[in-house]
């Protein structure tokens, strides 16, 4: 302690910074502060990581259920395509395939419009058809608040319900003033119908 005082007296506060013990001490304290904060962050992260992941998984499952309420089990098919981030097949309690839940991310106005599209599979042997059972938005934070974000209105999203690839190609109503954001939603729905359609075709039209 006495040595430090002597050094501080010798150099003073405004002396040369080289080999100055006061500066060394400053650096040490800064290191200590950042070290303590880093350890605390690490401990908290370790404590909460699993819990946060579980909550996120639960939320994702709830989002899929929201667009396909009759489904009870979702399985990731691990397919992707343009604008499709992931696709899940949905089966009901008896294990029959009832549809797909597709997470899509298509270009909107400011960035990607992330949404989940529910598709219902109907029809019997050999003649399956796909229609939209629901669309719910996951992340539209890149769209202009109050303008592009209006695509989240239920009226706009409801129009997709019951649509097939053919009827979607025919017409759809964009939100006025938010054409690009609306297009992002539409492109996502289209990509979901397209990929699910191809999956059904590749399985020979017979889906167990």
């Amino acid at each position: 302690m006495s040595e430090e005082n002597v050094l501080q007296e010798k150099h003073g506060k405004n002396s040369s910074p080289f080999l100055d013990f006061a500066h060394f001490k400053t650096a040490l304290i800064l290191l200590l502060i950042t070290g303590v904060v880093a350890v605390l962050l690490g401990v908290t992260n370790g404590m909460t990581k699993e819990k946060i992941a579980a909550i996120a998984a639960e939320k994702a499952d709830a989002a899929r259920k929201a667009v396909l309420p009759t489904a009870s089990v979702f399985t990731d098919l691990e397919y992707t395509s343009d604008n499709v981030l992931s696709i899940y097949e949905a089966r009901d309690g008896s294990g029959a395939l009832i549809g797909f839940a597709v997470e899509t991310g298509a270009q909107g106005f400011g960035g990607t419009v992330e949404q989940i599209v529910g598709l219902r599979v109907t029809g019997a042997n050999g003649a399956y058809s796909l229609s939209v059972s629901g669309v719910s938005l996951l992340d539209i934070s890149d769209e202009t608040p109050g303008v592009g974000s209006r695509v989240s209105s239920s009226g706009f999203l409801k129009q997709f319900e019951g649509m097939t690839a053919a009827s979607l190609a025919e017409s759809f109503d964009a939100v006025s003033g938010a054409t690009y954001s609306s297009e992002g939603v539409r492109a996502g729905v289209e990509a979901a119908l397209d990929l699910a359609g191809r999956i059904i075709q590749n399985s020979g039209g017979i889906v167990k």
Partner: protein
Amino acid sequence: MKKKSLGAIFMDGLLFQNPILVQMLGVCSSLAVTTSLINALGMSAAVIVVLICSNIAISLLRKIIPDQVRIVSYIVVIAGFVTIVDLLMQAYLPSLADSLGIFIPLVVVNCIILARAEAFASKNGVIASAVDGIGMGLGYSVVICIIAFVRELIGSGTILGYEVFGGYYQPSSLFILPAGAFIVLGCTIACYQAVRNRKAARKEALK
């Protein structure tokens, strides 16, 4: 410097030294989140909580933190502290994290937090710093809620998402866009200054 009473510290934050209207701090966030009243309320809650806690933390550490590296230390302490709270909230209060989650990272870089650490908490005791945090936080909240109220009312014709004009009003999207934020903020500051100047003039006349 004369010691101020806690009441005076509080009123400074709320009114006389209002962070947005007088100090012009945190203007960026106040422009960005005020598109709807519910966003402003969420941001207000996040700012008040973080400001009080960061003021207390900095005040406690003010004798340990060396002068030369104080700004770095403040940022590390505040950012670390807020991240911990954010993680804990996500794990144990997920519904609260849902509504406040997007504002928490915004708050870390809000300059009000750093400014109060530098200007007040690093020079004052724990209780005074906490009161300063409450006052400044409320001062910020009141102003962004006023701006958000006006912008949502004119720009969307709604208040907290509820239609107030019954469909007879054509909303002006200018007020939702960034330009509208500047206009409303400017008018709010002008009103505040007008009231202040009038009060000052009256005081002058009495002398």
